[in-house]
């Protein structure tokens, strides 16, 4: 499944769809990291607003994406985790620790801009 990746200046924005299989998620992980390298991006926003379930595999993939991109020297923010999805994740013990999250795309962008200002 193709996931649209938008380039907005220094930032890549990936919008995840509702029904992503494990294979889709794994492909996304490598695709996103490749794009970060290709565009020399400093920030990545992963928008999961449309995802109605974030189970252990999806959470682990999101963490891996964030950690891989951090090793590349860029920052990742996960945005748009729905309240009921967050509730289910906590019940499952999935906290995404060490990964930045924000309410929505706008707040994700302003979080990254603040980070960039500190860098320069």
């Amino acid at each position, binding site marked *: 499944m193709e996931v649209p990746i938008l380039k907005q200046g220094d930032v890549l924005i990936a919008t995840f769809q509702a029904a992503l299989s494990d294979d889709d998620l794994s492909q996304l992980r490598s695709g996103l990291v490749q794009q970060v390298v290709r565009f020399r991006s400093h920030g990545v926003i992963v928008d999961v607003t449309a995802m109605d379930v974030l*189970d252990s595999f999806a959470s682990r993939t999101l963490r891996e994406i964030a950690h891989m991109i951090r090793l590349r020297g860029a920052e990742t923010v996960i945005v748009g985790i729905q309240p*009921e999805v967050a509730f*289910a994740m906590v019940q499952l013990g999935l906290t995404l620790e060490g990964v930045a999250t924000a309410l929505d795309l706008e707040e994700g962008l302003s979080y990254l801009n603040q980070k960039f200002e500190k860098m320069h």
Partner: protein
Amino acid sequence: MLDGEIQVAINSDQDIILARQKGRALAAEIGFAACDATLIATAISELARNIVSYARKGEITLQRVNGGNRQGLAIIASDQGPGIPDVPQALRDGFSTSGSLGMGLPGVRRLMDEFEITSQLGRGTTVVTKKWKQ
């Protein structure tokens, strides 16, 4: 097959998605609130994932259940896989044998209201878990 019973064969990660979509649809039909439907869909996702990871194939059955004056949904996850050697250990947080996160079963138990597991070595595992409408 009983009325209001849905069976989904689980053979690959694609089937995990199908099973949770069917579960969400049945939850909506029973009248669960959106939040509970998400908990149910997440539980189905984890149980189906266990089948794919440990037994390779199995089945998820979704049932509408009645208990006294309340309505609910049951998820039955069954496989003929290797079985779980130590069930109490598998129900403890942080335990896993497949290199996964190891939060599957205790997590599912927290998402749902009732939880039963039977497992026989070499025969397979069956999990029956229910959620009641508030």
